[in-house]
């Protein structure tokens, strides 16, 4: 394909910005409608119990209340399907769109109130009395595993166990000269996009058509799901994507409200809007990442890793939602990341508890798995007296071994198996070490300077991208001489319009202002995948390349001398057929649609290095320097890519230091606002040097690009915890529980001090015996 333009690879400022900067954007809450009704969801105040009665008489009688629905009004209550990584045994744990006779977490929908004003709906919701007979609360995986209180009619609270295997771990561990075991924990936290969710559903009784605004991520799946639940045809339902205030994996999945609000609109023959408030969001939107692990590493004396084995217990929350099993599956398969580990045995048990259900959050399972792996590596390297950077360099998968299969998912078919595609893992890590100046900074490692202990660490990651089925692009030449490009990919704020316009402009040799990119809504293309699993650039972009090729072909066939088919070019904005030049609008009305199907995932990869200092009196950690280097196959827009990496990294710092959703033993949510749930702010962001390379184009798609939205986050927990451990080596601190809050670190430091004063003879650091 001719490429006379070179927008791809250039830091094009975003097309999206002007509206967003001037207040001209249209988020779902901004849509103006006449005769709008307002919905509020009544939610369970208890974590577990039987619903005895819902007394809504007072609420129904309030002035301005239009309707109130409970499960009884809905009839047969639909269950939310598992969209991704479903296993048959997960079906019994699916979530009903509204609780009928049992509630299983604080925040579970029990009723929906519709009123003429939002404030009236809120007042009415407070007047609903839900009478619940409490049941014992399954507050964590330890209680869940006892199966004394069953959360479902199923015989166990353990939904499934994912098993990842490579080689023969038991024999390898038995023969290994060095092994070490450790326990880890990652806290429950959540994606927290700045815009809460919202939906505006309109039922047109005359045409029997339902239109829902506020879709994102997977509009086609959600449309099909909603249509099935309501007994409508897919053609009777349109999902419209408007501006979206961030997703990060959590927004846009099919939630209970995605049924309840359209249901109310249809039942009432009205326009109904629901806007989630932030307190509600903390109990209703997917949580993520809560798990504990007991892991063990085996190495040769020189530091070569022989194997990793262990068990992980995932706290899934109350139900298996659309993508609830993705994180546990990823943890099982991705523990070893970019490292060559011949023997693997990881069992990941998935437990239901009486807490908000969990789903994916940026780098799902990979962040947690990387934390376990990188911590084990540093413990082993220290024990064996091997430089920690050297330890990783010797264990990265060499380029000639790629493609390299990840651990096999036992008992699951080929669609669950995957292999790392290509890359120069060692070269990228070397670049990271050089940029970071590992050699010079090593002299500070473990040193006490002006009252603070300094430590450094380095880690590597792989990031899977381009998952899901195909993606569609449709190109239409319009009467004003533009090419309208419609894609099924959705925008969650990541700069999709700009990136895909760059790709389309290059593919058609047109300036970017001759491309009009539209996306996301289900009326634009016949089928679409959406934006998840770092897929939209690769999938949408590849579909655009195929469509551009088809469009040039179609122009050639429609040209006056159509023997020129296949030989037409676009030059200077004109169609060139031989020596003739025709304006593009001469072909107005030409339409092509093409789909790109992906068989293999993309794996971008990279390395992070961090330098921290810790105040031993308070446990305060300062990140003094942070370097990331990644290879994304092909860089489409360095500006937006850099934004993805830095944004993800800072989210990772939030995951590592700050963010935690807490429950008490009764399953009451203790984190209900941004005053309780701390996210990074501008004063906490360290200096960051983020370098993105297009070193090894992906062999599995025509663009050569790889998903790149998550790698900035994946290794942060492990790298930071290792830098803290290095800083606090004098106190033998092993920070294996996240988040690394000052009190937690202070306690570890104090415990280290006490242990040091108790034993005058310090442990031999090369002792190969496992320590608890």
């Amino acid at each position, binding site marked *: 394909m001719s490429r006379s333009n070179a927008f791809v690879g250039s830091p094009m400022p975003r097309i999206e910005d002007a509206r967003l900067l001037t207040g001209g954007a249209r988020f779902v809450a901004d849509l103006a409608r006449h005769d709008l009704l307002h919905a509020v969801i009544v939610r369970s105040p208890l974590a577990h119990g039987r619903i005895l009665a819902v007394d809504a008489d007072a609420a129904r009688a309030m002035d301005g209340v239009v309707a109130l629905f409970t499960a009884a009004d809905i009839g047969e209550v639909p269950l939310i399907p598992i969209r991704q990584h479903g296993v048959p045994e997960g079906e019994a744990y699916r979530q009903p769109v509204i609780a009928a006779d049992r509630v299983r977490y604080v925040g579970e929908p029990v009723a929906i109130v519709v009123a003429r004003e939002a404030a009236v709906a809120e007042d009415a919701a407070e007047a609903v009395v839900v009478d619940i007979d409490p049941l014992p609360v399954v507050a964590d995986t330890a209680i869940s595993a006892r199966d004394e209180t069953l959360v479902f009619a199923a015989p166990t609270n353990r939904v499934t166990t994912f098993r990842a295997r490579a080689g023969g771990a038991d024999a390898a561990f038995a023969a290994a000269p060095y092994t070490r075991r450790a326990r880890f924990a990652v806290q429950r936290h959540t994606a*927290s996009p700045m815009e809460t969710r919202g939906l505006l559903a309109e039922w047109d009784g005359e045409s029997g058509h339902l239109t829902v605004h506020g879709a994102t991520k997977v509009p086609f799946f959600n449309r099909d799901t909603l249509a099935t639940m309501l007994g409508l045809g897919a053609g009777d339902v349109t999902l419209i994507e408007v501006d979206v205030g961030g997703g990060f994996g959590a927004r846009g999945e099919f939630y209970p409200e995605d049924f309840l609000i359209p249901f109310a609109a249809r039942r009432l023959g009205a326009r109904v809007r629901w806007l989630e408030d932030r307190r509600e969001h903390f109990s209703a939107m997917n949580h993520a990442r809560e798990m504990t692990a007991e892991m063990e590493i085996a190495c040769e004396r020189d530091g070569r890793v022989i194997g990793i084995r262990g068990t992980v217990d995932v706290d899934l929350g109350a139900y298996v939602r659309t993508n609830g099993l993705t994180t546990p599956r990823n943890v099982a398969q991705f523990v070893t990341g970019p490292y060559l580990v011949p023997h693997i045995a990881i069992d990941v048990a998935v437990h239901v508890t009486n807490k908000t259900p969990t789903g994916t959050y940026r780098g799902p399972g990979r962040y947690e798995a990387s934390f376990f792996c990188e911590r084990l590596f540093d413990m082993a390297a220290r024990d064996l007296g091997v430089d920690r950077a050297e330890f990783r360099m010797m264990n990265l998968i060499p380029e000639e071994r790629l493609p390299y299969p990840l651990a096999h998912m036992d008992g699951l078919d080929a669609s669950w198996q995957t292999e790392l595609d290509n890359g120069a893992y060692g070269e990228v890590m070397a670049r990271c070490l050089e940029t970071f100046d590992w050699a010079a900074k090593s002299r500070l490692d473990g040193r006490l300077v002006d009252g603070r202990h300094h430590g450094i660490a380095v880690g590597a990651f792989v990031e899977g991208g381009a998952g899901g089925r195909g993606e569609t692009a449709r190109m239409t030449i319009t009467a004003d001489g533009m090419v309208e490009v419609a894609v099924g990919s959705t925008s*969650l704020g990541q700069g999709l319009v700009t990136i895909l316009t760059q790709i389309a402009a290059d593919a058609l040799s047109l300036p970017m202002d001759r491309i009009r990119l539209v996306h996301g809504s289900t009326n634009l293309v016949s089928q679409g995948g959406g934006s998840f699993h770092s897929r939209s650039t690769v999938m949408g972009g590849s579909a655009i390349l195929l469509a551009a090729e088809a469009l040039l072909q179609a122009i050639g066939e429609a040209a006056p001398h159509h023997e020129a088919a296949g030989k037409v070019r676009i030059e200077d904005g004109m169609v060139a057929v031989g020596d003739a030049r025709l304006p593009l609008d001469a072909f107005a009305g030409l339409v092509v649609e093409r789909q790109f199907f992906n068989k293999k995932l993309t794996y971008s990869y990279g390395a992070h290095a961090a330098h921290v200092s810790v105040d031993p009196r308070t446990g305060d950690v300062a990140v003094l320097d942070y370097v990331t280097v990644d290879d994304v196959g092909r860089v489409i827009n360095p500006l937006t890519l850099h934004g993805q990496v830095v944004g993800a990294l800072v989210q990772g710092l939030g995951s590592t230091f700050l963010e935690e959703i807490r429950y008490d033993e009764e399953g009451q949510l203790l984190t209900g606002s941004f005053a309780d749930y701390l996210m990074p*702010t501008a004063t906490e962001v360290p200096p*960051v040097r983020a370098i993105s390379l297009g070193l090894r184009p992906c062999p599995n798609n025509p663009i050569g690009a790889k998903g790149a939205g998550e790698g900035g986050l994946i290794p942060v927990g492990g790298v930071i915890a290792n830098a803290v451990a290095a800083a606090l080596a004098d106190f033998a601190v092993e920070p294996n529980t996240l988040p690394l809050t000052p009190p937690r670190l202070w306690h570890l430091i104090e415990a280290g001090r006490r242990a040091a004063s108790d034993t005058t003879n310090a442990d031999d650091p090369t002792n190969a015996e496992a320590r608890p």
Partner: protein
Amino acid sequence: MSRTVRFALNGVATALDVADRTTLADALRDGARLTGTHLGCEHGVCGACTVIVDGLAVRACLMLAVQADGADVVTVEGLAPRDGGLGALQQAFHEHHALQCGFCTPGILTTMHALLTEEPEADEARIRDVLSGNLCRCTGYLPIIAAVMAARGAYRREGVE
């Protein structure tokens, strides 16, 4: 109870009928139909709803509309030049890729506009300190800080006039 509040909104005399319990944010969004002021938490923590009232950056979710009576209110819609285009701060955000989803952006623009109007010499530490009252989940803040630093020159020049 409802009453009429009168205030200057982005330089235009405005009268809105509002219920006593209506927040300034809801009055701007629903009454004046200026939806650039976003509600991210309604707890006064995230800063997305920040508007400028008599020169001060305030949380429109924590202020009642009736309290704005007689005030001079500037929202994100009032930051761009009247003849179109972008203001200096907005232009700097565009050039530095200081926004992604753009939901928090209006509150950050108003907060930083209020800061630079008062303190065009604000250094990085001061900018970070003031910016720390606004949450952004996408950018990691670094490009925002760079954009604000770059926009200071325009505010210095305005101050001279």
